């Protein structure tokens, strides 16, 4: 069935498909078509009677009031809800800071009391010659185990994390394992090498080390005696600066850290200092040891002071399991 071709239709603007028509409608006609239709209806039928107009006006006003309430509520909710997490966070941070300040204060008070006890003890022991000798011995022992403050020349070793790994394209921090990050093991090795080089007292970020100190990793933080220290770690060492510098710089650990420094750009430096003052460490918590009941012997004759040779002068190196490069 063939029919003769119809004459070519006159040119028409291209017909949009349904999707395109919808998009064109969306982009071009923003006003509700109801307004135009209502205007036409009004033109046809004439204006509304004043009474009905007033009713409609008041409904419009009511609707606008409702819109106002919605906007205000949304505003209030946005203000109240968005920073909820931030508020909780800030509260926790201030809590932690308060508690830290409290601990510091208690620590200071404990130090004062300890000093007072030491003074009283010395005053009591100074009456006899043997007592004075005991007091001197005691002070030396306290300094070497870290429960007495010390001051003297020494060296300062600074070690810290290198730059965090960044994505080479975006420059954002990546979650990849960071080889330039110091672990508890690194600090332990440094401290052990320093003890080996003749250190007499060591503090990390002001935290004095004792024979029972621990250096441990907890999450991302390194804890020294359960108190966090942060990079760069400043290790202050009291001892003979010359021999320590020589001995430590020649040690295998220092070699390794210098290699880390050139390879991973970690922070590592050794400097000597003419005077370093280190605070006393927290006195160890005695779990099993008990002070003996006061002996009937007069003080000074055969005091219950520990036998000298039973205490090694150099505290044992702190160590802990876990952590690894």
């Amino acid at each position: 069935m063939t029919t003769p071709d119809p004459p070519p239709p006159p040119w028409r603007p291209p017909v949009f498909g349904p999707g395109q028509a919808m998009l064109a409608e969306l982009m071009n006609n923003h006003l509700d078509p109801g307004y135009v239709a209502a205007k036409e209806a009004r033109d046809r039928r004439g204006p509304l009677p004043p009474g009905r107009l007033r009713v409609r006006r008041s409904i419009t006003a009511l609707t606008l009031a409702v819109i106002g309430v919605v906007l205000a509520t949304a505003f209030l909710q946005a203000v109240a809800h968005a920073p909820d997490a931030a508020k909780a966070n800030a509260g926790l941070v201030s809590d932690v800071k308060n508690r830290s300040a409290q601990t510091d204060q208690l620590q200071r008070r404990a130090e004062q009391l300890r000093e007072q006890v030491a003074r009283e003890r010395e005053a009591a022991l100074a009456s006899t010659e043997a007592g004075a000798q005991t007091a001197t011995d005691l002070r030396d022992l306290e300094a070497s185990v870290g429960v007495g403050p010390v001051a003297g020349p020494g060296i300062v070793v600074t070690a810290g994390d290198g730059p965090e790994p960044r994505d080479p394209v975006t420059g954002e921090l990546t979650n990849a394992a960071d080889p330039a990050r110091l672990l508890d093991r690194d600090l332990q090795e440094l401290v052990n090498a320093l003890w080996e080089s003749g250190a007499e007292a060591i503090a990390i970020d002001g935290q004095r080390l004792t024979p029972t100190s621990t250096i441990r990793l907890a999450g991302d933080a390194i804890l020294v005696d359960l108190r966090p220290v942060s990079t760069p770690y400043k290790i202050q060492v009291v001892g003979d600066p010359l021999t320590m510098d020589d001995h430590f710089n020649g040690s295998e650990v220092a070699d390794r850290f210098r290699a880390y420094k050139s390879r991973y750009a970690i922070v590592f430096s050794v400097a000597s200092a003419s005077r370093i003052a280190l605070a006393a460490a927290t006195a160890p918590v005695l779990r099993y040891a008990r002070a003996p009941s006061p002996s009937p012997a007069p003080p000074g004759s055969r005091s219950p002071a520990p036998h000298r040779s039973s205490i090694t002068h150099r505290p044992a190196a702190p160590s802990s399991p876990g952590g690894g490069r």
Partner: protein
Amino acid sequence: MIAAIALIAGIAAGLLLEPTIPTGLQPYLPIAVVAALDAVFGAVRARLDGIFDDKVFVVSFVSNVLVAGLIVYLGDKLGVGGQLSTGVVVVLGVRIFGNVAAIRRHVFRA
């Protein structure tokens, strides 16, 4: 004039009374806000065009909010709530933009 006063009174009332929204309705509040803004800007434009009509305004506002809420509700049930919310916000956002542009042309003649 009355309309502006009513809107401001509504905002003041909302700020002062701090109405609590039931938790179930809270996800729809942002959509309701966008729909309300669309209705308001449409009404202002119609007013400037000289074709404002109270009935159309009220009905368009109520239906906008209801339909937007319904779409989002259905989307939530179907697991595409986020996408449908985006769709509603895009459509209403385009309309708000266009109406504000028209209002601007009326006010600044530019």
